[in-house]
C-alpha cells in the first residue's frame, strides 16, 4: 500500500462535486493525479497525515470543454495538457500556450495532467503559471453556494491563499494587437526540466513600448512580474541598443532569489534576447 486508505468519490456533475467538497471534512480534489498521488506517497513516507477523502473531477464533462469566440478563450479546468496542445483554438496571443504545453514534463504526464491541476497546485516546475500571468488570464472559481469568484492569475499566484471553491475554467482575452516574446532555458540539453523562462508582452505606440508586461519564471521557485523593467521599457524607444541597456534596469531582488550565478546570467541572456525579439516582431504583432 503506497498511500493510506481513503474513500474515493467520482461525482458526474459540478454541483455534486461542490457539495461533496464542502460537506466532507479532510478532502482533496483529484484532477490529473500526477501531482496529488506523488504528494500522498511522500506524505505517507514521511509519516504525515493524508486526506480521508478524495473527490475525483474526472467524470465531469463540462470541466473539460475548450471554446473560443471573438473575445475570449475559455479552457475548462480539467482540460488535459495534450488536449489543449491539440486544440484548434490556439492562435493569436493564445499560440504561446502551445509552446508551454509542449514543454511540460513527459508525454504520459501530458496525457494526464490538467491545466487546472497545474495552476492550483502552484507547481512552478512548469511554465504555465508564468504564461497565464503574462496573458492576464482569469481563474474562475465556483463555491457550493453557487457563488462564483474570479481571481486574476497574477493575484492568485501572489497570494497563496487556500480556497474552498473549485476552479472551473480559465479565460484569456483575445488580443490581436499585443506583441509577445518568450524565452525559456532548460537545465541541460539532455533533460526536460525548465530552469527559467521570461515572458514579455507589449504594444507599440509609434516607436515606443507601452503597457509592457514582463513575467519572470524562476523554475521551482516562483513566477512574478518585474515592474522595474516594465517601467524602463515603457519609457524607452524601441531602438536596437535598448535590449543591452535594459539589463541595468532590472528588479535585482527577483533574479538573485534562489538563483545560482549561471541562472542569473541566463536570465540576462534571455531578457536581452526577448527584448530583441519584441523589436524584431514589431511589424508582426503575433510572433
Amino acid at each position, binding site marked *: 500500500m503506497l498511500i493510506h486508505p481513503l474513500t474515493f468519490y467520482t461525482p458526474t456533475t459540478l454541483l455534486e462535486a461542490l457539495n461533496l467538497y464542502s460537506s466532507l471534512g479532510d478532502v482533496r480534489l483529484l484532477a490529473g493525479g500526477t501531482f496529488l498521488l506523488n504528494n500522498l506517497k511522500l506524505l505517507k513516507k514521511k509519516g504525515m497525515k493524508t486526506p480521508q477523502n478524495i473527490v475525483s473531477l474526472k467524470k465531469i464533462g463540462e470541466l473539460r470543454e475548450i471554446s473560443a469566440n471573438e473575445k475570449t478563450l475559455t479552457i475548462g479546468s480539467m482540460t488535459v495538457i495534450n488536449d489543449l496542445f491539440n486544440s484548434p483554438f490556439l492562435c493569436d496571443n493564445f499560440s504561446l500556450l502551445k509552446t508551454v504545453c509542449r514543454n511540460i514534463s513527459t508525454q*504520459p504526464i501530458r496525457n494526464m495532467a490538467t491545466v487546472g491541476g497545474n495552476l492550483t497546485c502552484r507547481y512552478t516546475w512548469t511554465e504555465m503559471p508564468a504564461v497565464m500571468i503574462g496573458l492576464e488570464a482569469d481563474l474562475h472559481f465556483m463555491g457550493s453556494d453557487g457563488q462564483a469568484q474570479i481571481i486574476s492569475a497574477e493575484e492568485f499566484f501572489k497570494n497563496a491563499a487556500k480556497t474552498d471553491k473549485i476552479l472551473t475554467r480559465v479565460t484569456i482575452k483575445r488580443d490581436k494587437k499585443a506583441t509577445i516574446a518568450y524565452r525559456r532555458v532548460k537545465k541541460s540539453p539532455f533533460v526536460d526540466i525548465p530552469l527559467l523562462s521570461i515572458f514579455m508582452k507589449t504594444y507599440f505606440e509609434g516607436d515606443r513600448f507601452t503597457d509592457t508586461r514582463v513575467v519572470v519564471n524562476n523554475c521551482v521557485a516562483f513566477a512574478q512580474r518585474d515592474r522595474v523593467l516594465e517601467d524602463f521599457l515603457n519609457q524607452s524607444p524601441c531602438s536596437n541598443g535598448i535590449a543591452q541597456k535594459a539589463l541595468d534596469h532590472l528588479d535585482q531582488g527577483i533574479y538573485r532569489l534562489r538563483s545560482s550565478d549561471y541562472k542569473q546570467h541566463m536570465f540576462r541572456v534571455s531578457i536581452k534576447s526577448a527584448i530583441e525579439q519584441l523589436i524584431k516582431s514589431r511589424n508582426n504583432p503575433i510572433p
Partner: protein
Amino acid sequence: MTTLIVNNRKYELNLKGHETLLEVLRDHLGLTGTKTACEESECGTCTVNINGKAVLSCVTFACAVEGEEITTIEGLAQGDLLHPLQQAFIDYGAVQCGFCIPGMIMAAKALLDKNPEPTREEIDYALDGNLCRCGGYPKILEAIWQAGREMKKERSWPQ
C-alpha cells in the same frame, strides 16, 4: 464493486479506494508485465494505455478509471502472433535487460495507433517519459519507426 476493463476483459474488483492502477494490475490481476522502477512518475516503466493514450499507472487511481479501456503489454499479442511492435523490438535488437520494454512498447503503441508514420523527432517526443538504463535508445527508436510502417501496411491490425 469497481469494474475495470483490462485487455478487453471485465474485472469486478472490491477496491477500497486508495489503490493505484499499477497495484491493481500487478497484485490483484497478476499482470506483472507492467513494472515500476521509481514510484514517482519519472521512469515510465509503468506505462499502460487508457482509451488509447499512454499514461502512468503508478499515479492513476484505479477507481478513477472505472469503465475505461485499459490496455497493458499482456493485451497486445494475439495468441502466438506478436503485435508488429513486439516483433520489431525483437527484429531490431531493441531488447536488452527488458525491464523498460513493456512501458516503451505501450508508449509507442499509443503513438503509432494515431500516427503510424512519425518522424524521429515525433518518436523521441512521444517516448520522452520512458527511461532505458541499458541505453538502448537508438535501436528502440528504430524498432518503433519500422513497426509503424509495418502497422500501416497491415491495415487490418486491430487497434
